[in-house]
């Protein structure tokens, strides 16, 4: 059983309180979650990392247990990246290894590019943040996907138990009272809104021009069958980040770390050991 607690840190001239999910024991490791919010990350992946590390997962402003309206206090991606620099400073972290998935993967790259001294090793799992004319990725893909189409966009094998557990957490538990239903739905919608603010309508905010600044050894992980952000983007990231290695995982979609947890966890642990 991995220990778990929620810390709250005030940053941004004391104006924003960031909840940070802290689990496990060991050297520090930061995980930046995706657009769906901190509640949709798959506990198995995080807990297994937390067996060797103290894992810090901040809730992006507006998501999870944060104040929904805090997201209005940041104007743009630049503000957001600086907020994360302050947050890690406040946690006494750095240089520290940083992992990010999807939207969080983009943030991890931004952080490593803006503050190269802050990030010791970088793992970007299916990050957004670049643009390819031949395979366009817009925010519409995940923010307004019809509910019945969303699962196939995110996962390769919809019947896999880990995927089923994930999809189950998107909707309120059966028989939940009205307030629980409202809370679960509002939290998911608002996570998409709060993260969408910084990448709307196309998540290409100039990261391409900043990737050359990344000094941290970098591992890029991608699900071969990713239907949301095609694997061609993995090649793009690997090409643009100096010395980066790309691992393409078979039998996985966008939620590669959930779908192939037995392959991704050792891959990440090996890389972090250096």
């Amino acid at each position, binding site marked *: 059983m991995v220990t778990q607690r929620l810390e709250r840190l005030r940053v941004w001239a004391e104006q924003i309180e960031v909840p940070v999910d802290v689990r496990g024991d060991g050297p520090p490791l930061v995980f930046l979650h995706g657009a769906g919010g901190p509640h949709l990350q798959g506990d198995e992946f995080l807990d297994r990392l937390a067996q060797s590390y103290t894992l810090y997962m901040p809730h992006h402003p507006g998501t999870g247990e944060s104040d929904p309206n805090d997201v209005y206090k940041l104007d743009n991606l630049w503000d957001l990246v600086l907020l994360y620099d302050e947050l890690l400073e406040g946690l006494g972290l750095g240089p520290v290894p940083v992992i990010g998935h999807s939207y969080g993967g983009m943030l991890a790259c931004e952080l490593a590019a803006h503050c190269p001294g802050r990030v010791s090793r970088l793992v970007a799992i299916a990050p957004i943040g670049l643009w390819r004319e031949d395979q366009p990725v817009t925010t519409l893909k995940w923010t307004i996907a019809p509910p019945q189409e969303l699962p196939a966009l995110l996962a390769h094998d919809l019947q896999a138990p880990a995927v089923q557990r994930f999809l189950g957490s998107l909707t309120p538990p059966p028989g939940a009272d009205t307030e629980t239903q*409202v809370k679960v739905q*509002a939290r998911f*919608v*608002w996570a998409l809104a709060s993260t969408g*603010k910084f990448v709307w309508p196309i998540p290409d905010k100039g990261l391409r021009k900043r990737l050359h600044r990344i000094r941290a050894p970098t591992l890029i992980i991608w699900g071969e069958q990713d239907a949301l952000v095609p694997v061609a983007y993995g090649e793009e990231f690997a090409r643009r980040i100096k010395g980066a290695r790309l691992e393409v995982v078979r039998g996985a979609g966008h939620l590669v770390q959930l779908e192939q947890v037995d392959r991704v966890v050792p891959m990440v642990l090996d890389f972090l050991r250096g």
Partner: protein
Amino acid sequence: MKVSAFQLMPHRELPDDFEQRYRSVWVDPPWWELSDPERVGEYYNWTLDELLYGAKLGLDGLCTNEHHQNAYGFMPNPNLMGAILAKATRDQGLDVAIVQMGSTLATTQPPHRIAEEYAMLDCISGGRLVAGVPMGTSMDVEICYGVPPLEHRERFREALQLIIRAWTTNEVFAWNGKFWQLPAVDVWPRPVQKPYPPIWLPGAGSRTTWRFAAENDLCYCFLSYFGARAAEPVANAYWEDLQELGKDLNPYRFGYLQLVTVSETDARAEEEYARHIEYFYRKCLHIPTEWFAIPGYQDYESLVYALRRGGLRFEELKELRYKDFVDQEFVISGSPATVRDRLEDVIKRLRVGNLMVLLQIGSMPHELTLKNYELFAREVLPHLRGIWEGRWENHWWPKKLLKQPAAT
């Protein structure tokens, strides 16, 4: 009571299998498969002729609005329509309000462009403009025009402040906003109406929108196609909020849009209008439900409020028939007597001072639309006029068109 004709300018001849063939009427129905520009030119001209006919018949205002990339209603710039209406009604001596419902604040760059265009309309019409400041739909603002949903309302508020300042300040000023920075603002022309034209805020039932209207003494207009029953919770909450804010309950603070079709008898109305009404709900409102409330389109408070209230799924509309639309009050349709009774009931129930009627609906052809206008104006309108007369003053109407100032 003020009653204005509202026109959406829909595609009137979509194929029978439109809703099976395409996933939506908005954003991505292919123009090149569905439309012929010369034929569409006819739609625009019919729309203008129908509105002008309404003005001749004595309707109080003519409403046009802005939408993009769709077959539901495609006037990307309603001010082009408003300009024609302002000029034609002036030439014909028609004392009618030009109600722009209107230019979308969050997407007009820079927004004091609206201050300029509206002032032009007020000058051309000689002070007959109603300045609508619509919030705009998710499809238009977030999808077609790419605004981040969380910035939608912030942009709206900044744009409105800028417009009002641009109309009222007798100095050249610098605007250092969050979304717009302008070194020297001094709009030409300025409106005829002082300090500025009446402002209406059209919305679709977000709590934050009507509260903003209430706090700022704007006329909140609830534009919905689901009739008085769906509007009642919104209207009630709006009046409660006004009361809480210590404002009067002047019915002219509230605008409401209603679909109306009139014929000689109830049976005749069904015969003539049923298919056009069904076309409207099945094709013109063929919109995926999730597009209507893109994450962030509503602020958090409104989102939670809306989730608690639950909502109608647009897919369900396809199952309904004419009889359902009438029974559920989405549409008021029938003989003049039926329409009079039902409309009067709705006006009083919701406390509507500024009524808008949609008289051209979906595929309704030009000739039938004219008939609907004529029967409505001759047989129904005179019976509605007096509803609030003498008891309340309409502060949200061009002053020069208020012929008999009501006692307060």
